[in-house]
């Protein structure tokens, strides 16, 4: 996909992958999202031919782990994985609540799990308090910093955490490969309905904030990242502040690592973000520059919801009450495109997708399904 012009969203190539019983469509996998959609819509789902032609067929350990988490979070769900692991059948139950501890393992970071279940937590019977152990920041999934600084404020737009706060604490950081991070998320439930949103006005970038984290490496690395990142962003913006967040002792997890998360806040109260974590051999300067370039790309793409959080926003738009929800995004990622198809499959909601702002951005409009929290108890 490199080097391709990104003036319009790209249709991802289809391949022999996951298949749902209800369709003949072959869609590449947001595994977690399928499970979440199935549970929210109450539709029993089966996913077939999972990597059936791969060297190592069947679901991966982190997917099994995800299913385990779902099992903990619901009552009465029947999850069946066949002997080869190439087929998963799920009959959804009711989302419960309470305190849960989950070890996310080391194959995927906590963000993978959190991004998936964030759609379930507001529709539970009781408030969820989930403790996650594992990798907090890595380069494949959304980091806990982004969830704290961008995803949770986005949820507030939909009315989650408006009355009772969403509490998200990063107690320990854990870098790959060994992890050792520890976070706690408390998410209140939706009592009535979500809010329908209209995230259209892009506004202008008001300020840029960031977090440069370091674990089990010299704290100087943080400063080096910050300087490098500022060197480029200051060309555009004066109000840049990047916190260097050094974790010491037992709070720093089991592996060395550092990374940079950048968030650009708009005058209209939205956030665009980019982040990058260090791989072996990356210098802090390179990372700082690369991350800030990513942020500038994100800003040039525009939109009120950043690329990483598109799916989260879309999911909540669908679940919002029977009214019009509208968001502006920069570019549709292939991940989002697949997700939109899933949404149509599970919820019967088709988005109106228009080019806005002379084709620079994309406007997504839908009429919500008026999803109610059926699990909650009344007295």
């Amino acid at each position, binding site marked *: *996909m*490199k080097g*391709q*012009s*990104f003036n*319009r*969203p790209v*249709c991802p*190539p*289809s*391949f*022999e992958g996951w298949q749902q019983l209800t369709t003949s469509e072959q869609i*590449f*996998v*947001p595994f*977690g999202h399928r499970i979440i959609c199935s549970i929210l819509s*109450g539709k029993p789902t089966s996913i077939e031919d999972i990597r059936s032609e791969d060297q190592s067929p069947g679901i991966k350990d982190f997917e099994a782990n995800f299913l385990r988490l779902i099992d903990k979070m619901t009552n*009465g769900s029947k999850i069946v994985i066949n002997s080869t692991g190439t087929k998963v059948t799920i009959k959804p139950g*009711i989302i419960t609540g309470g305190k849960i501890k989950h070890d996310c393992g080391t194959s995927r970071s906590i*963000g993978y799990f959190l*991004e998936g279940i964030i759609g379930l937590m507001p529709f539970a019977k009781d408030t969820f308090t989930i403790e996650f152990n594992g990798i907090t920041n890595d380069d*494949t*999934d*959304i980091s806990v910093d982004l969830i704290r600084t961008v995803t949770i404020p986005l949820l507030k737009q939909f009315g989650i955490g408006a009355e009772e706060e969403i509490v998200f604490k990063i107690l320990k950081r854990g870098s790959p490969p060994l992890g050792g991070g520890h976070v706690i998320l408390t998410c209140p439930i939706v009592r009535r309905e979500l809010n329908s949103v209209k995230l259209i006005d*892009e506004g*202008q*970038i*008001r300020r840029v904030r960031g977090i440069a984290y370091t674990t089990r490496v010299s704290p100087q690395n943080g400063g080096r990242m910050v300087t490098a990142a500022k060197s*480029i962003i200051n*060309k*555009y*913006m*004066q109000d840049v502040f990047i916190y260097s967040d050094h974790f010491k002792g037992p709070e720093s997890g089991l592996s060395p690592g550092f990374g940079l998360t950048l968030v650009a806040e708009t*005058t209209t109260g939205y956030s665009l973000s980019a*982040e990058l974590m260090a791989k072996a051999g990356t210098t802090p300067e390179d990372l700082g520059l690369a991350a800030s*370039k*990513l942020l500038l*790309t*994100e*800003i*040039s793409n*525009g939109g009120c919801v950043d690329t990483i*959080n598109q799916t989260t926003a879309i999911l909540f738009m669908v679940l919002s009450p*029977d*009214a*019009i929800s509208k968001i502006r995004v920069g570019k549709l*990622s292939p*991940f989002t495109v697949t997700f*939109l198809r899933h949404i149509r499959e599970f919820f*019967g909601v*088709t988005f*109106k997708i228009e080019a806005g702002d002379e084709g620079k951005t994309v406007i997504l*409009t839908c*009429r919500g399904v*008026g999803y109610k929290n*059926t699990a*909650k*108890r*009344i*007295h």
Partner: protein
Amino acid sequence: MEDKENKKHRVPKAGPKAERKKEKKVPEHQKNVKERNPKAFTFKSATAAAKATQRNSDREVKKHHVPILNTTSILSAAELPPYLVAVVGPPKVGKTSLIRSLLRNYTPERIDEINGPITVVTGKQRRITFFECPNDLNSMIDIGKTADLILLVIDASFGFEMETFEFLNILQVHGFPKVMGVLTHLDLFRDPNKLKVTKKKLKHRFWQEIYQGAKLFYLSGMINGKYLKREIHNLARFISIVKFRPLQWRSSHPYVIADRMEDITPPHLVHKNPGMDRSVTFYGYIRGANMKPKSKLHVAGVGDFDMASIDLLPDPCPLPDKVPRKTLNEKQRLTYAPMSNLGNLFLDKDATYVEMPVVQKNQGEAEGMMKDLQQTQNTIDQMMEESTLRLFKGSAPLSNKFMEEEEEEEGEDMDDEDDDDDDGQDDDDDEEEEGEDIVVTADGRSRRKAPNPMKFKDDEEDKSTNGDVVYDEEEETDEVKLLEKQLKQRKELGLDDDDDGADDMEEEEEEEEEEGKRDIARWKEGMVERAASAFEKQTTLMELVYNESTKKEEDKEDDDDELFQLKKRRDGEEGLDSIDSSKFFSHEDGKQGTDWFDEEVINSLAHRFVSMDPSADNVNRPRLKDDEVYGDFEDLESGEKHKSSETMKKEEDESFKQKKIDQKNKFDNKYDEEEEEEEGDFFSSMKSNMETKAKEAALEFAGEDAETRAMYEGFRPGYYVRILIEKLPMEFIKNFSPHRPMLLGGLLMGEDAIGFLQCRIKKHRWARKILKSNDPLIFSLGWRRFQTMPLYSMEDSNGRGRMLKYTPEHMHCIATIFAPITPSNSGFAAFQSLDDLSTGFRVSATGVILEQNQSFKVVKKLKLVGTPAASFKKTVYVQNMFTSALEVAKFEGAGIRTVSGIRGIIKRALAKPAGSFRATFEDRVLMSDIVFLRTWYPVEAKRLYNPVTSLLDENWKGMKTVRLLRIERDIAIPQKPDSNYAPVEERPSMVVKPLQVPSKLRDKTPWAIRATLMENKIQRLDQRKKKLDIKRKVVLEPEEKKVKEALKTLNFLARERHAKVQEKEKKEKEEYKKKKAKEDALEAEKVKNTKKRLYKLEGTTQLNRDFKKTRRTQ
């Protein structure tokens, strides 16, 4: 004129007016205290005043309910579905007559038979669907859930009937629609006084049930089988001004009351297998919320089904286009009653039928033949099938069936194809029908086919495979050329994906070319433009996101060619497979190569930053003085236009002005808004907010065509649609009756799942018996009616749900039922039987849903009893409570108690007697005590969900209660011998030990008591002594033994002698007694005689004395 002063008003001081005024004026002494002395009652304390205001505002807020959106406020009258007015009442009260009279009032049409819903245009802005509700509970429930206005017909001569109250109770739980009462049979009253009293009584009873002042109409009598015109007109006027309240369930769920249904199963398949499931189309207006295509539907009385397709049809009974100034003319007063054989237009997916009234006139021969043809019951196919042919004389006749059997093998493939594609079959049928213009229905009615004005396709798959335009097989070469040209353009523009739909298109076109060129027909001229527009459409984002089926088909085609194929992997596929992350793609973005330090790039992004935006007057903005050049010019390389500082200044000024104006407007708007907010409270702002949102929603897709719009938001209420449902049981068609309502209720997300519901339930106070746990009960909940087995429970103060065997008599309790998931707060009514009239009042219970889950914890108490095997200080070995060590292990740490109230805890299982354990207690436990463990045993509600299929079988009977079965089969209630009461063995009388009083205390007591106490003590000592004597064992020396022996003998002898003497004495005594008795008797006789004599003597002497006395005195 203006200067002229008006004459002043003079208050009349005399005359009748003045008199009247004087009379009106209440004299001071008659006024109440407050009026007389208002100053005394002004508020004295600020707190009291504050309290009063608080109370008033509290009362106001208390009236508020959560606002429900009223669709009528958004939709125009023409868009709204007709209101459903149901006429409900027991049989023989005049329902049909009422509908007839009302229809007569509205429309000139005459309806012979009232079957199913009848839609009438009643006014310029209103349509009404009338429905006569039959007197069965199933229909009453369905109507209660859907009707907007209910005309409750009551026979005044009889009074209220149970059905009426049952119906009102059903209404109450499903959201109360508007109800108007209609009293009939008032002419049966002879005595006007009695009539008046009855009216009043009925009115008040009616008010009590609905609300004070509920509208009740009196229809005073009938003339020629019709109610009085004036009264009906009055009623109609009231109907036309009724305001409807939005109801929670209905405004969130779409539903259709079908006016018509048609079995569209291919007849030859039905002929082959009459028991097969049918495909049925339902026609009706969508009501309530938007109906999403392909959603789940509940057909009340049948079950849950997937909607196979939904099509928008033109409104068969529209409001007049031009609103007339006064009243509607006759042509505008349309009536649509398809099942009552009325309504001159029938609209189908592909055709419109015009009803032709049968005109009686003299038949010619040809007409007669035509009539005969029309009246034949069998189709030609059938007749052909039944006809036989005899080839030879005396041979068995050959029937068509025989031929078919032979052909079956060949024919099967064909049939299968037909099965797969029902729509195709329909189309074929229609094409065939196109030739013949008149369609004859079974009852001899003639319908004429008219060209269809509108045709909508909804099938999304169809659309996606064919693109937006359905290409004709014979495409034109010109068209192809145009398409090719556009394709090229598109490729040049880089709009096309490498191998997306376009290739597919090309292939298609090639095929078409091969087919050969044909002449262009006139009617096809517009097609090019249409195709072109379609092509443009295809490049939209929508298409890119949602259309992806074309390529796949290609793949599939390839697969067909060879049996085995090498799997090919596309580039990047691996990456997608291995990582499913939202973050992944943002990294791989195409702008990696951009030099972000480049001045041009910085400038191009400037507008995105506050500090750099040229339009923003910001201090932070870095000013570049060097850039100033003279005059405007355009940088030809970069294409940027530069402007001189003067023009810049001008523009700046203008923009500044504009900005000022904007700011002012903004401020004004904000100010106004704030004011508005201040005026309205939270409640009204919430309401208006809802309404604006709904209006926005209505406007958002207003520009789209109906088809696209339905895709985005579903079919809106007010649309007349045709819904196809496949695999409907055959009994639905077989036992179809137009009198029963056909309700198609839309189900929302997750409402088709089944699970456990917990609800608050209360036995109806009129129901005769309390309800028993696990007795089947019929629920009417949501759209559904179903039988399930509720488990009753009560919540303890600690939140534990304790099972109840029976519902409480006058209290709410909790019921756990296995039922389809229904949102909380939905009401329900429950019935033990829907048709058993002997139960008196059929509504057994009502309630509301509280919670949904896949399992609930309901427990009942279980006491495990054990006895001490050994008791030490505080440790006790308990046995007989459990049977194995494993069981004990489960209860380790559990609290136990003895009957005497000593608390303890289970410690550990013991090895020896299986199931015994060690426990510790807070005090010493006696061996005679009993130890028990209080535990909670989970009880599961039964998983029974049995939908009431009243439309499949009119006499539907559900599962019976155990009690009914026992009565039916004459089975006695089984009794456990353990549970029987047996006479209790009486306890042996207790020996109470004498009271012991310490000597110290005894010495202090008063003498009287002390004496007794002393006595007691002495006695006690004696006894002790005796006891000791008895107990003591004496070992004797032989000497002593001898002495003792001797003494014993002597004693014995003495005793013997003594006994003899005594016996002798006794005898003597007795003899003496006898003798004495005799003597005594004699003596007594003697005395008696003597006394007798003496008294006699005395009496005579007395007499003499008296005599002497009298003589002496004389």
